[in-house]
């Protein structure tokens, strides 16, 4: 009988606000940094990174699982874009 071998992949999911959606967290952080004297910082964007440890047969399947998790929970398509990257070990 054939058993597919499962590999572990570390998948990084980056969820960011779409262009045009205001980012109050980023803007306020920028303001606070300016008050501390960081005038060289021209913009601050907040984003969220999730690191998922995924067991899958192939890298493509690991990516597909991560994508499904974005669709079902991690991102709201109205305001978010997401990027998925498999980290090389």
């Amino acid at each position, binding site marked *: 009988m054939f058993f597919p071998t499962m590999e572990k992949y570390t998948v990084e999911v980056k969820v960011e606000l779409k262009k045009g959606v*205001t980012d109050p967290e980023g803007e306020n952080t920028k303001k606070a940094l300016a008050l501390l004297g960081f005038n060289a910082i021209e913009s601050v964007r907040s984003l969220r990174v999730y690191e998922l440890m995924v067991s899958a047969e192939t890298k493509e399947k690991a990516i597909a699982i991560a994508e499904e998790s974005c669709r079902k929970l991690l991102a709201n398509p109205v305001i978010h874009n997401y990027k998925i990257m498999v980290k090389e070990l």
Partner: protein
Amino acid sequence: MNVADVKVCVLRIEGTNCELEMAECFRRLGAQAEILHLKQLTGECSPDKKRQLSEYQILMLPGGFSSGDYVRAGAIFAARMKNALMRDLVDFVEKGYAIGGICNGFQILVELGLLPGIDKTYSEVPEVALGINDSARFECRPTYVKCESSGKCVFTRNIRKGRNLLIPSAHAEGKLILPDGKADEMLQRMIEQDQIVFRYVDYMGNYSGYPWNPNGSIYNIAGICNSTGNVFGMMPHPERVFYRIQHPDWTQNDIGENVGDGRAIFESVLSYITKKF
């Protein structure tokens, strides 16, 4: 049916914190309200605690910080419901029973895709979002809202259109965002279908920006309903102004019969259910 026979399900998971007031509002109007953990509806509990959604006529999603507001406010509660209960929920809505979401509950209904429900009962992915307030802060204070509903929303039928209510807000993620490019069209459809229920106003009743609109919500929207009017969500907390003495200025005015501004919302939905079923 009689008010005393109306069964209200107030649903919670870990981090929900407004379920007691919510249930109490219905009880004080004579209905039966039961606070349930989501697991009691999905069957992950002992048999004596198991319940079916179909036993109830009203489902309320109270405020709080379900699952610590991780990922996005309401996202985890919604994902868990979607996974186990979506068919029951759609059935519930299509039979004409009422679902109300307050604050975190509104965020959950949006994440579930039951709101705004412009063309269909629910969408698989959310059609709108409740994003972080423009101030990037938790905004917590009394707010004024104007009732905009011409009678579609079953939660506001006892409230005259144009009436201003004082209802407290307490949220960090309450800014209604419509998808870029489709925003005007969606807003227009919602206005045409009488889906805009409450809009933030100042103390004179004029639509105003921050701080009267605590979050920067599009078109000053504080609450909406679906196209059939039986699914309703709002950010401010009507259960916190059930009595007149819960208003911040109660000592300055005659409290009359001690009716707070939020009470009509609960009365409306109860009278809808008692008349219809």
